[in-house]
């Protein structure tokens, strides 16, 4: 699902290499300040992030960058919802790709078969993902730890099988094609730049929603459930209900992300929602730092960028990918979010210098 555009000439290649600095720069801005880690109000810094996100595609007006950031934005929405469940409620879900898939298929079916406007399909996707999450979550969330992980994993696999087998509804292995561009009131998001603003607009909206949630009584109750369920119920918090709410919310986020994904890729097929994809999203959350909301966004940008960067090394990409992830987890055990700012700025400086030196020698 990652674009593998082949570069034409040697000089093009250089230019494009530099382009990879753009997401890194954004990442360094988005990564939370460790000293503000526990302050939950909106800060001046948040407006800088906002500015950076708005300006970035205008400064790097390369459609490849735009496309990359569109993907990163979609993954970030997904990771944001999951981080509420993993990082705040302290649970684990390995079936999140299924909700992403439910969102994508809902949009695909509603827009291609019933010609529903994509905006309505977008809302319907969130709703259908949430309803299914509610039905699945009610029994499943009684489990804890590994058992919950396994149950959600099983749910994801069941979803895949259903999608593959019910050919009439979902198109089976081939999937559904020809999903129209996302459009609102006749305005169609048909370029990567427009899509960038669409996705990041939705992401920012959901981010603000999540941040409000986290700094309110709901967020505190969620953290309480994660730390000690006994203590949480001793102050009157309905623990199962709390978990279910966050699970459903995360699923609704995933449904929205899936809907946007279907519109932008104009296709929905089961390959996109496999276990590997769930693991990728969980990696984004953990790599970014599960205990804050900036982390998953940073993680999504980082991993999207990393995979695209590695795609030019073809068959070596997977081992390199694995090594990099391992190193990141060793050096940033609590997510890149916490210590990234300092380290990354240092890293970029070092890289830029080295690049200059190498080019001077050549």
């Amino acid at each position, binding site marked *: 699902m990652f674009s593998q555009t082949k570069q034409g000439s040697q000089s093009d290649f250089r230019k494009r290499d530099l382009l990879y600095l753009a997401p890194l720069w954004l990442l360094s801005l988005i990564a939370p300040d460790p000293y503000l880690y526990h302050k939950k109000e909106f800060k001046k810094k948040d407006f800088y992030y906002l500015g950076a996100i708005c300006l970035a595609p205008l400064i790097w007006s390369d459609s490849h960058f735009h496309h990359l950031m569109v993907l990163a934005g979609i993954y970030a929405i997904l990771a944001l919802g999951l981080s509420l469940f993993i990082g705040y409620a302290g649970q684990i879900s390995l079936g999140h790709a299924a909700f992403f898939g439910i969102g994508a298929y809902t949009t695909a079916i509603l827009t291609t078969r019933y010609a529903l406007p994509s905006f309505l399909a977008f809302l319907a996707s969130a709703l259908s993902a949430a309803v299914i999450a509610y039905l699945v979550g009610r029994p499943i969330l009684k489990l804890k730890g590994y058992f919950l992980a396994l149950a959600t994993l099983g749910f994801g696999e069941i979803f895949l099988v259903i999608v593959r087998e019910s050919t009439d509804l979902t198109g089976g292995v081939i999937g559904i094609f020809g999903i129209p561009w996302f459009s609102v009131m006749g305005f169609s998001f048909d370029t990567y730049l427009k899509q960038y603003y669409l996705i990041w607009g939705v992401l920012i909206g959901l981010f603000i929603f999540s941040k409000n949630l986290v700094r309110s*009584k*709901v967020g505190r*109750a969620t953290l*309480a459930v994660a*730390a000690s369920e006994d*203590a949480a119920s*001793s*102050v009157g*918090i309905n623990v199962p209900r709390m978990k279910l709410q966050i699970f459903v*919310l995360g699923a609704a986020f995933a449904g929205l992300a899936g809907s946007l994904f279907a519109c932008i890729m104009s296709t929905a097929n089961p390959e996109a929602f496999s276990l590997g994809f769930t693991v990728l999203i969980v990696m984004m959350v953990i790599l970014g730092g599960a205990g804050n909301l900036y982390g998953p966004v940073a993680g999504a940008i980082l991993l999207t960028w990393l995979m695209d960067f590695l795609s030019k090394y073809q068959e070596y990409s997977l081992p390199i990918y694995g090594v990099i992830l391992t190193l990141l987890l060793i050096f940033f055990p609590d997510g890149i979010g916490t210590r990234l700012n300092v380290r990354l700025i240092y890293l970029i400086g070092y890289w830029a210098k080295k690049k200059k030196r190498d080019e001077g020698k050549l």
Partner: protein
Amino acid sequence: MPLLSIEEITKEYDGIRALDRVSLNVERGSIKGLIGPNGAGKSTLFHLITGVEKPDSGKISFKERDITSMEPHEISSLGIGRTFQTLQIWGNMTVVENVMVGMNRRLKGNLFSCGLWLPWIGRSEKEALGQAKEILNSLGLLGKWESMASQLPYGKQKLLELGRSLAMRPELLLLDEPASGLTLTEIRQLSEQISKINHEGMTVFVVEHHMGMVMEIANQIAVLHNGKLIAEGTPESIKTNPEVIEAYLTRHTPPHHIPLPPGGEGKGEGVRQKNDA
């Protein structure tokens, strides 16, 4: 009518009777102490009151409502606050947030109104912050309101746990060994706090090993031994009750018990010394 009444409660674990037809009443506005040697069934009784476990038979009622088969969060919502034997604070939150969670039930807002930060959410949050700071102030923790709860020393964490249950504005406060692990000064502070909140009208039911503290603060004491209620009365009558002294002196020790060195401290030692004195 008592605030909390326990009638003929029995609980068995694998054939062992942890509680054997225990009946107890906690009167409104009093401080009731519950003592007994290790394994007497004190913690079990607390678990049954708070709904963590269900009794095999018997009935527990609070404010004349049967709470025997209710879920823990329902029971606490009715107005029963508690602290835990093993400290249960939320280390992933700041001190003031710990207290604010205690108010959760009283605060307005649900998933959507909080996420959209509708006008009244901001107001009620501000109000809650003010109230939480007041509670922290009365406990002497206001200086650290913004630091993470896990960074507080143990004694302060105990106070914070008390503060959290006070934030619920419960009618009955269950304290499970509040003095364990505290220094003498801290115990004195804690006793003062408990007496103070009792004066403000809260009913307190306390399980404690630290005899001095219970004798000092409680107006009524019940003694459990091997799952049976062996005595109930004022601190003075309990101190001189031969059955109680007997229970504390002839504690059942398992065969593999390693004898303590002379002067070693057992949990029941307090009573013996008190009687000697």
